[in-house]
């Protein structure tokens, strides 16, 4: 299969097109995803053009977008709906948490909800408190829901195809600062398995566990650390639920030191879960305390001076690693 260079948004669009061609039950709907092409431009990469009857604009009705996807999925379709900003996902939390995630279980396995909710998370655009949050941990606390969070165009495409084919509800989290990121993506059909981490960089001294935009910050930090002779391993989880515990533990067996990095607020963040796994199941592997580098426990501020302070960057990761290595 030949590779093409495309950006993350195009890669998401490519997955949508392929799955819509393959499966007539896949429909896309959300706000301005039709002719306008989506506010982040995803469906504008030919998805609406090719499937004008299956890419539908909705009113500003987040509750209905997610809620009807549950019913449509239960009735045999495979909706892949869009919630523009992740900050608006809490509007549809009953639908996602109490309905989609519980259908299979509470009806004793009789029914299923094969649906995907795509949404954009993250700060960095000066978009302030209502358009910048990273709320992935909230989703990871809901059994029955899978949470997928790709960092590259390759993973975005392969994981979205897997997510659409998955028979469970999947929250598919796209970082808005990654949409223009370019990468090599195979033409045509391929999947990236849900629940498999990706070792982005091998190292021996410390493991940086991360996901989404922080993968790129960790790779920058690893470059910086290399100059000091510190070899950092970078592990991109790619999927939070299910989590690839083995990949974390295998890496710790090599490096014996763990730094967890996420953009979301520290307290109650997914880093705590990773730390608990490492401490509980990898206790003997660890030579040092576990360190978390995360956003502060504040809303995302508007002022560029404050937003820059909010965001985790490579220097902060480097400082944390140096602190750990002494």
């Amino acid at each position, binding site marked *: 299969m030949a590779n093409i260079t495309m950006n993350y948004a195009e890669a998401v669009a490519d997955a949508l097109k392929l799955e819509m061609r393959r499966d007539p039950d896949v429909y896309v709907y959300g706000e301005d995803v039709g002719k306008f092409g989506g506010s982040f431009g995803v469906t504008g990469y030919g998805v609406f053009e090719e499937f004008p009857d299956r890419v539908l604009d909705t009113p500003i009705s987040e509750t209905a977008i997610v809620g009807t996807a549950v019913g449509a999925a239960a009735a045999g379709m495979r909706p892949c709906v869009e919630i523009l900003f992740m900050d608006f996902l809490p509007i549809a939390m009953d639908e996602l948490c109490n309905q989609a995630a519980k259908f299979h279980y509470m009806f004793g396995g009789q029914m299923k909800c094969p649906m995907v909710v795509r949404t954009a998370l993250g700060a960095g655009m000066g*978009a302030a408190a*209502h358009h910048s949050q990273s709320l992935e941990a909230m989703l990871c606390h809901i059994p029955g829901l899978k949470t997928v969070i790709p960092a590259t165009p390759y993973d975005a495409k392969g994981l979205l195809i897997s997510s659409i084919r998955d028979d469970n509800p999947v929250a598919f989290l796209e970082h808005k600062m990654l949409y223009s990121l370019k990468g090599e993506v195979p033409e045509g059909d391929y999947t990236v398995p849900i629940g498999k981490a990706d070792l982005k960089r091998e190292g021996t001294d410390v493991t940086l566990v991360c996901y989404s935009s922080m993968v790129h910050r960790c790779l920058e930090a690893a470059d910086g650390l290399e100059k000091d002779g510190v070899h950092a391993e970078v592990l991109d989880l790619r999927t939070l639920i299910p989590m690839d515990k083995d990949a974390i533990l295998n890496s710790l067996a090599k490096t014996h030191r763990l730094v967890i990095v996420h953009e979301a607020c520290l307290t109650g963040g997914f880093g705590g879960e990773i730390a608990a796994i490492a401490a509980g199941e990898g206790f003997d592997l660890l030579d040092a305390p576990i360190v978390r580098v995360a956003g502060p426990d504040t809303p995302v501020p508007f002022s560029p001076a404050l937003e820059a302070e909010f965001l985790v960057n490579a220097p902060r990761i480097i400082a944390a690693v140096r602190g750990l290595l002494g």
Partner: protein
Amino acid sequence: MAVENAALKPTLLDLYRTMTRIRTFEETAHKEFLKGKMPGFLHLYSGQEAIAAGVMSVLQPDDYISSHHRGHGHLIAKGADTGRMFAELFGRVDGFCRGKGGSMHIADSSLNILGANGVVGACVHIGTGAAFACKHKHRGRVSVIFLGDAATNRGTFHEALNLAAIWDLPAVYVVENNLYGVANCQRDYMKVEVAGRAAGYGFPGVTVDGNDVAAVREAAGQAVARARAGQGPTLLDCRTWRHWGHFIGDAAAYRDPEEHKAWLKRDPLILAADLLRSEKWATQADLDRIQAEAEEEMLAALDFGKNSPLPGKEELYTHVYTG
């Protein structure tokens, strides 16, 4: 334009001044944004000035208002300082929210403004709650909720309006009906007229020419009087047009250029100026002076906003909790 009597003369000139100040503020912000000087998103109010000016002219200073993402005009019409507004738009410490909110969360609580809001439809519940407080704690006050036409598709709108109806709350829902959400035209996302939605909850819905400031003032006056008298809520469906794209950077290619041109001819400032001149309530020189004063004010305001310091890093951590 429905003009009842000459008593409108001083009022109309004031309304014209308010509208001119809003327009000039927005044009100044627009230019700064295009220079790359302002962070984030800017949703301009240009074209909708008659609604903020007309409605606010019938409110008392302690009445509540709740606003949305297109909220600059509401602040100015309620009396907010434009220098502090610019400071907020630049993310500076003298902004009303100390730079933490920006355009989408701009608010001056000293004027009982419960905030612009980044979540479409959130203001409907918030403002209805303020109406509850007006009924039970601040008797005689009213709560005015500004929202867009597309926001009437949120569940919040329907739940709040029903509650306001059964509790006879002193709420006025002012829908700034510019016929578009982001790129979707109203006929594509609703089958009824906005005004008609009120009937479903059992209170009046009134269609208003939202570019005619005197008409807005008249309709708002009646709605507010009803609310103050304990007769319950009213919905005003104010027909208008935003002059620019959804936010700066959106070319609004989805709109019909002919329709756009026709609406520009009905610019609320032009309509008000025409009336002021034809009734001989103002000369062109008077109008020019109002414009010049607004420009002078906004230059100074911009200067203040730009030169306000950025918040210190410690500001990131303050105000998460109170007390």
